């Protein structure tokens, strides 16, 4: 069961993509959505506030989404935070690397609200 009141952190270096994901999440009924423009900014926010879900892009600077994922999984206080990668990186090696690093689901861009919903549902039903 997905808690619609949980705070969600959206991490992407493109403001446009943040707005798209934010609006899709609002359509799905989520109310509390924060954002960060790269992995290190996200990590600071994650350490300052408890989030129910992280939705992150991969290719960002200075800290990528993949590095953020590894930092999150290595931090005892954050390691159980659900993490969905949303990225244009669609090669097999990326999916396997992300899964090995502990990602909970993987969405390839471009995507729609239905895909986002089904992956969020899958993360919280698993």
């Amino acid at each position: 069961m997905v808690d619609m009141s949980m705070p969600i952190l959206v991490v992407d270096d493109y403001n446009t993509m943040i707005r798209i994901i934010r609006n899709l999440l609002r359509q799905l009924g989520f109310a509390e959505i924060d954002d960060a423009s790269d992995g290190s900014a996200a990590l600071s926010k994650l350490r300052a506030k408890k989030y129910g879900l992280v939705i992150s892009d991969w290719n960002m600077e200075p800290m990528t989404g993949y590095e953020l994922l590894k930092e999150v999984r290595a931090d005892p206080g954050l390691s159980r935070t659900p993490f969905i990668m949303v990225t244009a990186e669609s090669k097999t090696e990326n999916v396997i690397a992300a899964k090995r690093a502990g990602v909970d689901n993987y969405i390839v861009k471009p995507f729609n609200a239905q895909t986002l919903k089904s992956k969020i549902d899958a993360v919280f039903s698993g």
Partner: protein
Amino acid sequence: MERNISKRHTTASTRAHLSAARRELCAIVRATEAAAGAIMQCAENVLSADPACAESYRRIVGQQMSAIFESCAFQDITGQRIARIIAQLTKLELQLAHASLRLAEERKDDGSARKRGPLLHGPQPQGRGNSQAEIDALFLASEAPSR
């Protein structure tokens, strides 16, 4: 002497083509970002409008739809810019082909081409990379660490 003059001309010309292409690409990035921002702003205005007053709601929706159509005009401009970039790249491709032929005559390729960072490939062309369905299958099949 003749070869040096030719090399200098090629380098200057290559720089000019790349510089022009870079300027066009920067303009495209700005235009698409501005258009996407404007279109999303219209959508957000519609979503936040109060439908209780039908007349006012219709007016707002109408205005915002017109603004969306206006914002889509970026496609025409960026199309023209992209056409110019293609022309620049075609010229550059020809120059590089000539330069590479000349270089091949002078020395062997040492194979030290710069490679991109690990795991960063960017968007794949149509038919390359994996679809969402393929990624889902891969995701289920690959090994997850215990947490």
